[in-house]
């Protein structure tokens, strides 16, 4: 217990916490949207994130031939390289997510009513992906070239506002607003809301379930892929177990905000990012990874529907 670090660095911990929170929010989309539609914990989403982080690095190292020792970029070149990394990660993650649904869940939906069956299948596919990457990378971490100079834009209350954190927060807001518009204003978004309200009735009403579910997985994967890009921009290193480490924190964020509730996931993610940063300042970073679990247990015990309430439709009346 050491409160002095918390007090001294409160402002910079807050900025870091918010940017980490946005990463959690984007990963949490993959859990919360799928849960809303299928009432299934999409275990494999954490590995979608892992694949996204590797894709981000591979885009910059193979497509643009950057190495760990490359200089940082400026101007137009910086913009299109970063954009390519973001889009590459989002597309690959989105496709992997859709593929997971087809391989691991689709057959089970019509065949079984047992809730354990799809859950075990999801755990299986996430192990396959994590282990596959472990074997391919020989368990070694993979570093990312630093393309974006982490300039300090301003100092507020003694805390530095860094460019990478600002990038995460601004683009995070843009992505989340786009998602909110998509879910609320488009025809497919209406389909997603309908299926999450009542699975059977929406089928009777002629909604193409497979299309809606694939779209949900695609959107969740796109969000997770964007989170992977932001994570690499800020933390610059990944390894095969990254999905397990961050995925469960993101799941906690989804539960904290009320799983199935997109706006709740936003609040839950930011809250968790801040709590993790503050608590690691107080208790030491070696305990950081169990903060999320402890919060998860407490939330489920005392308010299982999450702080902001479960289910998609409540938030959008």
């Amino acid at each position: 217990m050491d409160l002095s670090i918390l007090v001294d660095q409160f402002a910079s911990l807050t900025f870091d916490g918010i940017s980490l929170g946005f990463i959690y929010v984007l990963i949490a989309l993959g859990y919360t949207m799928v849960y809303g539609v299928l009432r299934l914990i999409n275990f494999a989403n954490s590995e979608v994130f892992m694949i996204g982080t590797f894709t981000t690095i591979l885009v910059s190292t193979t497509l643009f031939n950057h190495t760990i020792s490359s200089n940082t970029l400026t101007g137009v070149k910086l913009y299109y390289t970063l954009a390519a990394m973001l889009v590459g990660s989002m597309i690959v993650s989105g496709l992997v997510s859709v593929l997971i649904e087809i391989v691991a869940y689709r057959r089970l939906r019509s065949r079984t009513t047992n809730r354990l069956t799809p859950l075990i299948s999801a755990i299986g596919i996430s192990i396959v992906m994590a282990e596959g990457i472990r074997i391919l990378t020989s368990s070694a971490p993979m570093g990312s070239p630093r393309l974006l100079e982490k300039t300090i834009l301003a100092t507020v209350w003694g805390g530095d506002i860094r460019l990478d954190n600002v990038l995460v927060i601004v683009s995070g807001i843009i992505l989340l607003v786009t998602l909110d518009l998509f879910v609320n204003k488009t025809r497919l978004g209406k389909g997603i809301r309908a299926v999450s309200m009542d699975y059977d009735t929406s089928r009777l009403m002629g909604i193409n379930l497979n299309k809606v579910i694939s779209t949900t997985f695609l959107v969740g994967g796109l969000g997770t892929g964007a989170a992977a890009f932001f994570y690499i921009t800020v933390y610059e290193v990944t390894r095969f177990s990254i999905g397990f480490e961050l995925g469960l924190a993101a799941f906690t964020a989804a539960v904290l905000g009320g799983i199935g509730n997109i706006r709740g996931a936003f609040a839950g993610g930011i809250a968790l990012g801040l709590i993790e940063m503050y608590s690691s300042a107080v208790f030491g970073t070696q305990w950081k990874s169990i903060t999320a679990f402890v919060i998860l247990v407490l939330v489920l015990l005392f308010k299982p529907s999450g702080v902001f309430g479960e289910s998609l439709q409540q938030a959008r009346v």
Partner: protein
Amino acid sequence: MNFNLRDAGADFWAKANKWQRYVIALAVIAGLFALPLLQNTFLNTPSTPFVSVLFFPMGIYVLMALGLNVVVGKSGLLDLGYVAFYAVGAYAAGILTTHTSLNIWEILPIGIAAAMFSGLILGAAVLRLRGDYLAIVTLGFGEIIRITALNSSSIGGAMGITNIPNPPTTFGLKFDLDNPQNYYWTILVMIIITVLVIRGLAIRRPGRAWESIRQDEDVAELMGVNTYKYKLWAFVFGAAVGGSAGVLFASKSMFISPNIFTYNVSILILAFVVFGGMGNIWGVIAGAMILSYVPERIRFISEARYLIFGLLLVVMMNLRPDGMLPRKKREKIGEVKGVQSE
């Protein structure tokens, strides 16, 4: 696929008379005790001595799979943190042998009690949750135990505990590196006791309660089953079995560290249960024996074992969700007979 090996076996067993049953059971048990004799045949494992493989991974994993089967297979509670109880048992053995003069046989009940207590604490807190949340919280519990052990320097931190003594010589059997068969026979006795206890429970009230909870928890509750109590029982029983495996493992390997007790072990045990057939003791035993032996025999698989087991989970769930030897279809055989011959 009308032929069901599990039902065929159950029918044969139901038709056999008392003496036939004794002869078969004794023959099987004698055969199992004689397994170390096969050590220089084609079954031999390349990197570790065959008799050691019989104890770990095979014996330990069969025991743990039996314990997890009560939780996942019989009661339908998905526990992804089963390794925590194994760790609690192993650490109880590690701490008590190095700090007190107790020997392993005296520590075994203490280790089991410690694991049961942690199961009770965890179960009391989480068993009111819905099934899929239970999976995540138990997973978190497993990680909390591991990270706490990793960050606690008083119990060795990342270095773990070394120099855990072997059990003393008992009934003229020496327990050391030169006599792995004695460990194997010990764990075989423990497996047989566990099987007898599970079979005993399965035909009585707890077994029926678990079955009803697995099929439909709400209906079970309406029918007057105290679901919370019996779920807690299943959890604590599973924890006891996991803890006993942990104590024995620590005394054989003489060294434990937090890196042994990872999430992957929980998944491994789950794969054994799912592969063999959730809820069926014989299927789970066969599944755990095969799946823990094959990676030892074939080096190539040993590298990628978790990958293969993950794939196995997906394939089994999609093609044969009831496992290789599915649990008996009670409704087919009829209620009275089904209950008696389980």
